[in-house]
């Protein structure tokens, strides 16, 4: 399992691995918002938590079609499916590698981008906490979507259409927690629900992902 994690991280960091693409996308989307809605700090500070959450979500989505498609094309998935490692574990590891290379950098970059959107002072901590709690769910659900569309030529768009509705609960509670934090209100209810969603998807989604991947490999 550690070998698979190390391999996925190495591949992401080498040339053509796509590390940083999600981060750059997040940066550009966030920078575009003041151009679109105008530079008034009052407007921006109201929408900042939601924009940052949507940006992070879309950046996560961007890298999903590479998650399993490359391994499918070169036959790695066939070989992993016949290896002693359970497919559930292999997919959990791949989701973890995706989070470490996509989700975690987004969490770390979000406060810096918060400055660009005049996020109010108390919001920074809760923005980071809500993203840290929510983005693992985005990777795990995304792995399910990737497993579902494996083997479909140009499945990237279909993958987005399938996965985005599943991201809705995470987005609602994540953005709500960040918004309440920014207004100086207590965000704990939203954070607890967000954590609950993340834990449930981490616990259950790998089984669903492995089941649909087995169908896809037939």
């Amino acid at each position: 399992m550690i070998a698979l994690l190390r391999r996925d991280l190495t591949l992401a960091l080498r040339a053509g691995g796509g590390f940083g693409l999600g981060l750059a996308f997040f940066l550009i989307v966030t920078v575009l918002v003041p151009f679109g809605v105008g530079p008034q700090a009052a407007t921006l500070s109201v929408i900042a938590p939601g924009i940052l959450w949507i940006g992070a979500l879309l950046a996560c989505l961007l890298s999903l079609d590479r998650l399993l498609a490359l391994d499918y094309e070169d036959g790695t998935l066939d070989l992993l499916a016949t290896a002693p490692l359970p497919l559930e574990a292999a997919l959990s590891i791949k989701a973890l590698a995706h989070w470490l290379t996509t989700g975690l950098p987004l969490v770390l970059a979000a406060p810096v981008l918060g400055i660009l959107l005049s996020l109010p002072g108390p919001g920074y901590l809760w923005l980071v906490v809500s993203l840290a709690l929510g983005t693992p769910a985005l990777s795990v659900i995304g792995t399910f979507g990737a497993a579902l569309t494996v083997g479909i030529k140009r499945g990237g768009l279909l993958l987005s259409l399938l996965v985005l509705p599943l991201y809705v609960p995470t987005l609602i509670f994540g953005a709500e927690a960040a918004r309440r934090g920014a207004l100086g209100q207590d965000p704990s209810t939203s954070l607890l629900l967000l954590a609950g969603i993340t834990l449930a998807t981490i616990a259950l989604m790998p089984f669903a992902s492995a089941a649909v991947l087995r169908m896809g490999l037939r």
Partner: protein
Amino acid sequence: MPLSIHDLTLARGGVPVLTGVSLSLQPGRALILRGPNGSGKTTLLRTIAGLAPPLSGTIEGAEDRVAYAAHADGLKAMLSVTENLTFWASVFGQIDINVALEAYDLHALKDRLAGTLSAGQKRRLGLARLLVTGRPVWVLDEPTVSLDAQAVAMFAAAVRGHLEGGGSALIATHIDLGLSEADVLDISPFRAADGALVGASDEAFL
């Protein structure tokens, strides 16, 4: 423990391809599958490897004992030869990759990125992976594609060494591997009645 298959019926894309396949493979033996394109060799091998369920029939002695190799080698272009092999070795709980490098004469290439290898060199690396699995039953789908005569001889030597070590091998191929001791099975007689219709679309399902 022999690999034994009883009365297997297989489908590809929902249409029966092969029916009534029975075979047995003892440790130390090799069986070569023959049959025209689209006759169901790949389907049979994928089913034995556990990648697809059979419509009916039983497979014994395959669970967690099969090392499968097909047209795609599962190599990462941006990893070196050593890194690729070490990864598969650790997935299968093995450590030593030197035997595999030796058998396919890959020592000179071991620090090259797999993406820079020629087709034949990639194939040799893909076959070397079998040696680091430690699995007793090799299930190989056209293993000699893009290999030159010298590399085919390396492959035959590796299979022979595997058989001498008590392993077994099931190989689908169209060429003569020089494995005179191997049994040969033509799977054409097992073709399902309407198999001819599906045969043409065989490759599309890969």
